């Protein structure tokens, strides 16, 4: 917090004109609570859910927020669009994962690749990236990691490189759509951007970045690619069709998933929020799949949903007492009308910070700030594109270290349980290279698409 911004807080009024006190003690306390919670989340000294809920509780105690603001305010409360979109997608995933479609695809791909390691890696990464764009990254890697271990075991190569590559592919693929990565969900809701906005602005870049990643992977993971022709039979003898235990369930799931995607594409025209589309899809899938509640709720990560709620309340409290408004004004002043400089700062700053702390709390805190910047631009060319700079930086930055995104942590856990421990630096070595390359590619993309010709 700069002295200038603090001074602005004391003299100025709160940006949203509500009744919260912007007096110095409350502001200082709110900042202390926020920074404290952030330190706990980043260092994992306490569980992140406890840190976010504890922070939210303290914000209420010090008078920086209240029930009205926390539960019902669109600007400073829990963003229910985000919570219910996540819930809906988690339910859909719970059913889809039971179909065995991922196992089917992965083994089919390994057979098509005739047991050649790099071809297998490229195909598994493509499946992962596409699935991550449509579903949650964590679930995608949870489904792909075990079958990858199986395939690597059969063809006699060490799986660490394959697993790391899949995580990186998952974070790249997830960048492409509104529902692909939680930061995008938060940005979409707060910035009022549609599913198609994301597809049109991010997906073209992601396709290019992914192809570059595949080429890079050939070199990065070259030591994982020892080809054992004598082991090919072990992979060709597997029968991927047996992974589909219930073809009717698969058919119904794919139809509903298709309808949900269609709903997302049309959601602006239908005047339905993405969260409503996801919930309708989830409901329909529950009905047609005839699964039990324990089955369709299996993949619902309640701790994650609660973590989001705590986070929203904490960030909302900072908005309430005017901290975000003051920072926003400072940022607006610093940016002036040089939006390309702002986009550059956002892209690289977000990439670095998302590598160090979980990108979800980072984006949740940055969104109100960027919102102020974009609003100040008042439709100026390049102002809106700041959202894409934030999304690209935060999503791609998640690849940088072993703790940059949840998918990274999950896969490292599976690898360790299977006897292939991947250390923090082992992952980060590869993650840093891929992050650097993809973010450096994103920079000219932003420039030429949004700034060069305006």
């Amino acid at each position, binding site marked *: 917090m700069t002295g200038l911004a603090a001074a602005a807080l004391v003299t100025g009024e709160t940006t949203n004109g509500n009744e919260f006190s912007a007096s110095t003690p409350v502001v200082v306390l709110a900042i202390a609570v926020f920074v404290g919670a952030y330190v706990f989340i980043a260092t994992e000294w306490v569980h992140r859910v406890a840190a976010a809920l504890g922070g939210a509780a303290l914000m209420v105690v010090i008078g920086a927020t209240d029930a009205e603001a926390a539960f019902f305010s669109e600007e400073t409360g829990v963003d229910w669009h985000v919570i219910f979109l996540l819930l809906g997608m988690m339910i859909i995933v719970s059913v889809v994962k039971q179909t*065995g479609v991922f196992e089917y695809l992965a083994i089919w791909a390994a057979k098509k690749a005739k047991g050649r390691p790099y071809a297998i890696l490229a195909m598994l990464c493509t499946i992962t990236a596409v699935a991550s764009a449509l579903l949650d990254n964590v679930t995608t890697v949870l*489904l792909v*990691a*075990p*079958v990858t271990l*199986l395939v690597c*075991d059969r063809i006699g190569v060490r799986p660490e490189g394959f697993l790391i590559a899949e995580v990186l592919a998952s974070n790249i693929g997830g960048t492409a759509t509104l529902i692909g990565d939680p930061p995008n969900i938060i940005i979409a809701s707060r910035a009022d951007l549609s599913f198609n906005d994301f597809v049109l602005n991010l997906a073209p870049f992601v396709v290019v970045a992914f192809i570059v990643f595949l080429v890079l992977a050939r070199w990065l993971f070259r030591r994982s690619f020892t080809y054992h022709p004598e082991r090919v039979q072990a992979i060709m003898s597997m029968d*991927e069709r047996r992974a589909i235990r219930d073809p009717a369930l698969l058919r119904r799931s794919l139809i509903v998933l298709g309808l949900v995607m269609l709903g997302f594409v049309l959601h602006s025209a239908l005047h339905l929020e993405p969260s409503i589309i996801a919930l309708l899809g989830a409901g329909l899938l529950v009905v047609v799949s005839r699964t039990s509640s324990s089955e369709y709720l299996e993949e619902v990560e309640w701790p994650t949903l609660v973590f989001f709620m705590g986070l929203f309340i904490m960030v909302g409290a900072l908005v309430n007492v005017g901290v975000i408004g003051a920072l926003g004004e400072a940022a607006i002043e610093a940016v002036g009308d040089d939006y390309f400089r702002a986009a550059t700062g956002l892209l690289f700053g977000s990439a670095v910070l998302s590598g160090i702390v979980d990108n979800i709390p980072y984006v949740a805190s940055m969104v109100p700030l960027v919102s102020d910047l974009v609003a100040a631009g008042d439709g100026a060319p390049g102002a809106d594109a700041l959202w894409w700079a934030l999304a690209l930086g935060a999503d791609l930055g998640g690849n940088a270290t072993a703790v940059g995104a949840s998918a990274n942590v999950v896969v490292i856990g*599976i690898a360790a349980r*299977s006897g292939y421990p991947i250390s923090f630096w082992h992952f980060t070595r590869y993650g840093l290279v891929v992050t650097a390359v993809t973010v450096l590619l994103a920079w000219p993309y932003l420039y030429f698409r949004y700034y060069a010709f305006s």
Partner: protein
Amino acid sequence: MRARDLAEQFPVVHLDTPAMDASRLLVDRALPGLVVVDRDGLPLVILPGSQVLRFALPEYVEEDRTLAAVYSESDADALCEGLRGRTVEELMPSRQFLPKKAADRPIVDPDANLMEVAAVMAEQHSPVVAVVDEGQIVGVITVHRLLGAALPR
């Protein structure tokens, strides 16, 4: 009838016994489980056959059951991949589940009655208990033997 009357001879395995040899013993002697003894020769834990299988299975199959279906008939050898190069100690449940006090061991007194033997078996989910007299294994009682003695003819 007392525990000592039911006790029968039974092979034991040590923590450093190769997992393959121990499994072979299970098969050749048609045992319901393995009696694992500690360094003092006292029974530490019973590894039921199902537990041995759990470790024989590749971890990824346990992580994702669907994968079990894709193996072909000729892949039976893959089933025991997990046993190769491991010892009995590595098949054991993690440390925290190992008995901390004597009462948690799969052990009964020679004077124990059938009800006591059954209680230990049920509580430990174990198909076998060892009969121990003054630090020496007298023999073991299998669930078959116990039920055989107890069921009405």
